[in-house]
């Protein structure tokens, strides 16, 4: 079912795991957050900073920082545009759409026929529904111009509310 590359288990040792568990709800918002994590997991502050640095370098951490609530910072329209793209050109189409500066995420996913014919997902964030729809139209025009006939259908699913947003959570 999963088409992702083989999982890499190397290097996530017991200390890494304890650091993940201690920080998956977030970093302590205090003057010395890494010292606070170190006190919690029972190692030195230096070790916490080293392990986090290694996890960043190996891609186990995408980044460290703030995740804003999209609505609160003015991106009230969060449109998940979905596209039914000819399999023969899905990858060049995905690369092209993903490179647009207003597309924040772009993935190929399986169709669920007959109800769900779409195989390309491109997330568009904008200040209004109209602006988001205009951007989706822009994608459609680009596809018609550069990949004539490859797009067999599309839809946009707007978000009507965040129900939960906690990020990764592994069991202790």
């Amino acid at each position, binding site marked *: 079912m*999963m*088409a*992702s590359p083989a*999982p*890499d*288990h190397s290097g996530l040792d017991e200390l890494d795991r304890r650091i*993940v568990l201690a920080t*998956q709800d*977030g970093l302590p*918002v*205090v*003057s010395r*957050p*890494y010292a606070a994590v170190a006190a919690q997991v029972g190692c030195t502050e230096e070790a916490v*900073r080293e392990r986090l*640095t290694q*996890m960043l370098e*190996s891609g*186990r*951490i*995408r*980044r*460290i*920082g*703030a*995740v*804003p*609530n999209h609505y*609160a*910072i*003015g991106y009230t329209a969060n449109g*998940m545009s979905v596209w039914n793209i000819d399999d023969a050109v899905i*990858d060049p189409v995905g*690369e092209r759409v*993903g490179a647009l500066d207003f*597309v*924040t*995420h*772009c993935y*190929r*996913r*399986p169709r*669920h026929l007959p*109800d*769900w014919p779409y195989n390309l997902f491109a997330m568009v964030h904008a200040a209004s529904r109209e602006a988001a729809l205009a951007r989706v139209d822009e994608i459609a025009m680009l596809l018609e111009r550069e990949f004539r006939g490859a797009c067999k259908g599309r839809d946009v*699913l*707007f*978000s*009507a*509310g*965040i*129900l*939960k*947003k*906690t*990020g*990764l*959570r*592994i*069991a202790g």
Partner: protein
Amino acid sequence: MSETSTPGVAAPAASRRGLAATREPDATDRKLINALQGDFPLTETPFADVAAAVGLDEAEVIARVQAMLRDRVLTRFGPMFQIERMGGAFCLAAMAVPEAAWGEVAEAVNGFPEVAHNYRREHSLNMWFVLATERPEGIADVAGRIEAATGLPVHLFPKEKEYFVEMKLEA
């Protein structure tokens, strides 16, 4: 996270808009949000370093980040783990939830620790959530348990290819 004690905020799980922020960020908050979406320093006093870079003092940066988390202007602050690189898996999933059962189903789905995000969307498939598990085979297992708990089919949309992911938004 403390989501229960803020006065005047509706119970989050069942409300239609979900976990809305309780206020708008001001200009200084916005400047901080933009500065904090980059690489948070891995130094002994990272908030002091951020403060120096944006022209505030450390205590104000810490107080503002705490306030933005409390008011849900920020949904998280900390490392964003890429679970696939730790041997685990993410999977987008969707369900068609009847309106009459909305609150109950949302509560049941959100109750699974494997559900990392959950959004209401305007479509017959109206509940879209992300499953995160420590092992790839955990996805099918939790999807089955959600189906058993809700009585509704869970459609899985595993990522077959990632073309682009941008984690930052200008505030």
